[in-house]
């Protein structure tokens, strides 16, 4: 069960997906976080972000749409408020970061690497819910390459690049990340989606579109992982709609070295720990 993922020692291959587990302490009342393979924190940005206006979520068949917009207190507060709790964990902590510019990614990674608890950096170039950066970066192989290079240059910790499925050929982006020095790839972030309220005639989300997650996207995620695993040599972390250990096994068959559990955490606070237990 134990794996070494791009230099990160994990006692099982199950992590939690960024944005679905807060900074960890939100779940500490309900489950033993130390039973996870690794914890990936909600995206942190250089400056605080207030996020998008409500309504931010809606349920869809076997899934949900969200447009949170990377609400977070910014790196300074993150260091003060989130790191002390994370330090107490016995599992590797991976910090998910997003910049509005290429330089911001490197700056964030550099600040975070000083914290001993940080065992890896996950680079978010795939958020569909922000005006600048986000998915716009992740759709362009050239920008993914530049961002990956600058983060790699800034830190020695393993750098994981999280990709968006909202592209024509995800292998082009994955290869660009690999060539730029990425140590691993996480696939996938949410799928761009939309839903209307028939009563009001308006979109259910404030920004109209949002990111679809949950079991509804699992076949898309499995397909992306399978394509990427054949195109690159670096390990692939599979994520998208995993509710059970059987769901996770599909990703391993597709070529994933590890998995992340996301939306399932909202449904069952012990979902990720149960997935890990089920793989034994």
């Amino acid at each position, binding site marked *: 069960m134990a794996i070494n993922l791009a230099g990160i020692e994990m006692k099982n291959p199950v992590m939690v997906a960024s944005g679905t*587990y*807060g900074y960890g302490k939100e779940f500490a009342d309900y489950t033993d976080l130390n039973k996870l393979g690794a914890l990936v924190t909600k995206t942190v940005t250089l400056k605080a972000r207030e*996020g998008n*206006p*409500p309504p931010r979520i809606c*349920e869809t068949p076997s899934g*949900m749409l969200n447009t949170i917009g990377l609400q977070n207190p910014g790196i300074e507060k993150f260091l003060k408020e989130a790191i002390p709790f994370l330090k107490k964990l016995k599992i590797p902590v991976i910090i998910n970061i997003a910049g509005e510019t290429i330089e911001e990614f490197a700056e964030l990674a550099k600040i975070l690497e000083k914290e001993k608890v940080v065992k890896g950096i996950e680079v978010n170039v795939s958020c569909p819910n922000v005006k600048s950066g986000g998915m716009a970066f992740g759709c362009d192989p050239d920008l993914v390459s530049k961002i990956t290079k600058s983060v790699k240059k800034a830190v020695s910790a393993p750098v994981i690049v999280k990709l968006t499925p909202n592209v024509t050929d995800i292998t082009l982006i994955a290869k660009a990340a690999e060539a730029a020095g990425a140590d691993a790839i996480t696939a996938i972030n949410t799928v761009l989606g939309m839903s209307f309220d028939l009563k009001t005639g308006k979109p259910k989300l404030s920004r109209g579109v949002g990111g679809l997650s949950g079991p509804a996207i699992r076949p898309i995620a499995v397909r992306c992982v399978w394509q990427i695993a054949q195109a690159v040599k670096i390990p692939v972390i599979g994520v998208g709609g995993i509710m059970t250990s059987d769901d996770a096994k599909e990703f391993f068959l597709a070529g994933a070295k590890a998995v992340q559990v996301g939306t399932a955490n*909202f449904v*069952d606070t012990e979902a990720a720990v149960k997935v890990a237990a089920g793989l034994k």
Partner: protein
Amino acid sequence: MPIQEKAKILDIRELAENHFKITLLSKYISTNATAGQFVNVRISEETSPLLRRPFSIYNSEPQKELIEILFDVVGEGTKMLSLKEVNEELDILGPLGTGFEIPTDKKMAILVGGGIGIAPLLFLARALKGKIPAVYVIIGARDKKHLIDKKEFDAAKCQVLTCTDDGSAGKKGLAPDFMLPILEESKSIDKETIIYACGPKPMLKACAEIAEQYKIPAQLSMEEKMACGIGACMGCVIKTKSGYQKVCEDGPVFKAEEIIWE
């Protein structure tokens, strides 16, 4: 500290058209919940409906180790919930959120519940007993069919007024309208009055405006689509004077003057 547990259904009944009450066995939650808090309920083990549904705790009885939730059937999830049977178990998370504050310096409380917004107010009415001498409850509904029986509030020694939009039961009009005569009659004790309300957004806004006009504090139980219920996903925010605040953690109860109405 909230927990996730399986709670047995002791009773399920329709109190008014499409309005159901479920009684659940939960020693822990009944002992630890405060008025205004909620439970996040998993409807099914299947993936649709996927997300939990949040429900205010309508009543909590630690001696009997039970809690009650009240809900109206609005979609697939609540439809499935209404079809549950006695002895089935529900996976619930709770008690969650920040509930009502009960000040010690007030002489009168006016509780306003519109439609299913009555849900957190029975627990509150009971909690106010012995702390605030005069408790008025205004129960509003669309029409007679949807009006919830006031007897549980009568039993909690409240002065209850019912109203419907079409006048088919109780007084005719919207719930906040009936706050005014109570406030006018007791103008001398404005400073010792507090308003609590839960219901549709326009009703809450009307309550906030009346509270501002009379310079009375008001606490409103807010609603927003919710996923995790435990402060992790940031899905359920509302706009407040201190930025976006989470209904699940910072609320569901907010001070009226904090809310920025869209």
